[in-house]
């Protein structure tokens, strides 16, 4: 072959410029062909020209993806731009009081890692505040860059501030009041000089960097409550993609001269042609959101590829292979496993206090998933096990320097379907008031009550509690399933009642009134009231949390000096004298026979009293804890208290040395639930977790 004439060098450069950008190896291989090509490729201008030539569509070399809840510490990829990645450094010190936003910018090609960015100059951020961030680079990932952080606080303010790598400082944050906004995770979109971030309630937060304005945009109603992925539309405006049924739909937003935006659907892709699911239409309903999640990661390459009319390639691999090969050679599948009535007997016996095993078993075979999500099976499962397992405990943490309280959840099952992040919506300055029959009663900062199902995440906002005949100096509230003849092991979706009880204390006496909300009528009725004995003497914990036993709700009054009973059927308030237990630590509990009991710590032992049919208290059981917990008796630090009782699963909760233990009354066994506890009242959450709800 004749050598290339030197005249061809210019032409050669043009050829090399056209090498595919998404196959970087090809250029390197070409450079090794001869010295003149090497000089061209590694020449001073080539890099710049190559980037410029391919500027319109830099190749996708891969993408970063955070494996779900992989770790509580470490780094999290937040954004990527022009070859650089923005990482969020998770806080090493877990703190409930504040959250620090620390970022790192990294160029994986040059390996250059920017110094950690200085801390974002926001006021104290709470872990319940939400944020997102964007990385902006102007040229090929080598020049200066900017980082934009937006934060939505639970107090209802939205902030934005910008870091510039040239000045090495954050700008002063701008803020607007936008109550109820929570920023969601996920990629932002940069359109012109505005950044767009996904928010809760199917909204988008727009940060206009030239006007320095923050505003909210609603998604079209068709796409509410769906997982969307923001992107640049074909016409260079704001767009997003969403999965509906088996279609991927692309929407774009046109803004008219008056600044009014209008969404239009621009096109659809049949997903079964794109995704490796054999038949998208038969894909179970529950898998669809998962497909949408998949897509939110996949969309950038997907859009690039569809534009070029090339086939979409699946690059997603979030999870490593599920398990290492076992040494045991697999035997043949036994015929027993083909008999579904037998298999359902096996699955019926999976333990409710290990909810993950139901989820994992549903993946073993399609037929197993069918059984586990069948409502008939689920009813049988709950009826078979009867007692709902203890999923965990709620506690209201209070900060000493402020009046705020933050609810926290301590899981009692591992792994737990519920975790602290699920409580984000609760935010700060909210209080868990009660947990019963799978529902959680939350009091908001403004006094409003919300009934919340943490598994289905359905919230029910109650109208304000009406004025009662007396003042509300002190109050407590309870939530109860209201279905007639309910055994309470399968109450999901049932109507419920909320009982609100308040106390007015004067110098002469104590007056109590009760108001009841029914989800059926969606209204409060002030039902009963009465005067109860001498005035309140204690300053705190005047009305304790509620306990359901024997058809009545019971509250500790005046730190256990009296017990108030509200009869649910008769709508009658009455007063019960407490058993002779030390004051300030009496916890009411349900006895096995359904009657009322009370427990307290006396000399390092749990004393349990039971109220008999003749309304007399009898000592029922004394459980000595010293063989169970190592402690130094007499040490003033060894404070032991009973802090709660689970109504259905038969546990008492005890705290000592800042640790929370559950005491199983049936077996007498003591289990540590949390290393990091307080003496505050616990609200046990008892509920079945099943696949369908």
């Amino acid at each position: 072959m004749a050598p290339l004439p030197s005249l061809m060098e210019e032409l050669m450069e043009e050829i090399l410029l056209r090498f595919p950008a998404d196959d970087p190896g090809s250029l390197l291989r070409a450079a090794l062909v001869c010295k003149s090509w090497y000089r061209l490729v590694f020449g001073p201008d080539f890099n710049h020209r190559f980037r410029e030539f391919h500027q319109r569509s830099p190749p996708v070399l891969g993408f970063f993806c955070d494996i779900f809840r992989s770790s509580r510490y470490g780094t999290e990829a937040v954004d990527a731009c022009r070859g650089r990645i923005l990482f969020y450094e998770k806080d090493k010190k877990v703190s409930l009081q504040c959250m620090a936003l620390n970022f790192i910018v990294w160029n994986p090609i040059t390996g250059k890692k920017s110094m950690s960015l200085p801390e974002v100059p926001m006021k104290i951020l709470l872990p319940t505040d939400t944020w997102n961030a964007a990385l902006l680079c102007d040229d090929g990932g080598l020049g200066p860059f900017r980082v934009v952080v937006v934060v939505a606080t639970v107090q209802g303010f939205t902030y934005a501030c910008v870091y510039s790598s040239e000045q090495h400082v954050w700008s002063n944050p701008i803020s607007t009041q936008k109550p109820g906004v929570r920023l969601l995770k996920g990629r932002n979109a940069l359109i012109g000089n505005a950044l767009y971030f996904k928010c809760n309630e199917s909204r988008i937060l727009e940060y206009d960097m030239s006007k320095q304005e923050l505003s909210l945009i609603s998604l079209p109603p068709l796409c509410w409550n769906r997982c969307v992925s923001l992107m640049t539309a074909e016409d260079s405006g704001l767009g997003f993609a969403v999965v509906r049924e088996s279609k991927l739909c692309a929407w774009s937003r046109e803004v008219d001269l008056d600044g009014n935006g209008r969404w239009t659907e621009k096109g659809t892709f049949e997903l079964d042609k794109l995704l490796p699911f054999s038949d998208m239409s038969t894909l179970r309903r529950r898998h669809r959101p998962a497909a949408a999640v998949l897509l939110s990661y996949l969309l950038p390459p997907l859009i690039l590829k569809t534009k070029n009319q090339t086939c979409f390639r699946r690059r997603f691999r979030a999870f490593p292979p599920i398990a290492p090969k076992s040494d045991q050679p697999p035997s043949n599948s036994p015929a027993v496993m083909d008999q579904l009535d037998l298999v359902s007997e096996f699955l019926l016996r999976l333990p409710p206090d290990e909810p993950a095993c139901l989820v994992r078993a549903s993946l073993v075979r399609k037929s197993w998933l069918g059984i586990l999500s069948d409502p008939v099976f689920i009813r049988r499962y709950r009826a078979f096990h009867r007692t709902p397992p203890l999923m965990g405990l709620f506690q209201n943490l209070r900060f000493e320097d402020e009046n705020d309280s933050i609810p926290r959840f301590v899981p009692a099952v591992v792994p737990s379907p519920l975790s602290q992040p699920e409580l984000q919506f609760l935010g700060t300055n909210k209080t868990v008031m009660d947990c019963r029959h799978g529902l959680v009663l939350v009091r908001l900062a403004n006094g409003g009550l919300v009934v919340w199902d943490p598994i289905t995440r359905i919230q029910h906002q109650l109208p304000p509690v009406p004025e009662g005949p007396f003042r509300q100096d002190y109050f407590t509230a309870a939530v109860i399933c209201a279905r007639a003849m309910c055994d309470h092991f399968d109450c999901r979706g049932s109507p419920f009642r909320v009982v609100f009880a308040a106390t007015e204390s004067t110098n002469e006496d104590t007056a109590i009134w009760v108001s009841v909300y029914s989800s059926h009528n969606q209204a409060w009725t002030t039902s009963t009231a009465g005067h109860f004995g001498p005035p309140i003497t204690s300053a705190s914990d005047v009305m304790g949390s509620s306990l359901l036993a024997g058809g009545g709700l019971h509250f500790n009054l005046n730190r256990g000096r009296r017990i108030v009973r509200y009869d649910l059927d008769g709508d009658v308030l009455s007063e019960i004298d407490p058993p002779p237990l030390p004051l300030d630590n009496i916890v009411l509990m349900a006895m096995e026979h359904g009657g009322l009991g009370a427990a307290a710590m006396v000399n390092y032992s749990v004393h349990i009293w039971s109220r008999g049919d003749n309304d007399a208290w009898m000592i029922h059981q004394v459980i000595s804890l010293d063989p169970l917990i190592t402690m130094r008796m007499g040490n003033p630090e060894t404070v032991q208290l009973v802090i709660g009782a689970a109504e259905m699963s038969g546990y008492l909760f005890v705290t000592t040395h800042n640790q929370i233990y559950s005491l199983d009354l049936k077996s007498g066994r003591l289990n540590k639930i949390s290393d990091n506890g307080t003496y505050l009242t616990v609200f046990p959450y008892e509920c079945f977790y099943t696949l369908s709800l």
Partner: protein
Amino acid sequence: MAAPESGDGNNGAARMVTLISSDNTRFEVEAAAASLSQTLQLTILDGGGGGGDGIPLPNVDSATLSKVLEYCIKHAPAAANGGAPNATAVDRAELERFDNEFVNIDQSVLYSLIMAAHNLEIEGLQSLVAKKVADMIKGKSPMEIRRTLGFPDPTPEEQAEMNAHMLEYGWAYE
């Protein structure tokens, strides 16, 4: 015919019945033990299985049947007492220990037992073996369960669905 009143096993205490396995082995057992099987109970109440007749069980081989009968003989006294409300704690603990040992067996034997307990409708044994399988399932990943139970490895399509599912239920795989 001296059929015993239903629910009262005493009348048949000394009475023996013969069961014939699929491979023609004859087992002679007390009627009370065999009556733990709902399937056999009716036949026995009708006076069947006595003398030289025997009750043929074409679905159960002799190895499995001997294992089933081991269970029935052990549990017959407690069952005759109507579930054992007046059994002592020692007796209950002994039965529990027996049950635990009893299912500590090879997987193929377990599967034969499941089928036999199902066909013969022996409630206690059905429950015991089902619990054993549940214990084999819990605490394992889907892949480990498949391997334990001898299911073939998933196809790439199934694997993709599994991945999607795992994304959705990420908490269960922590």
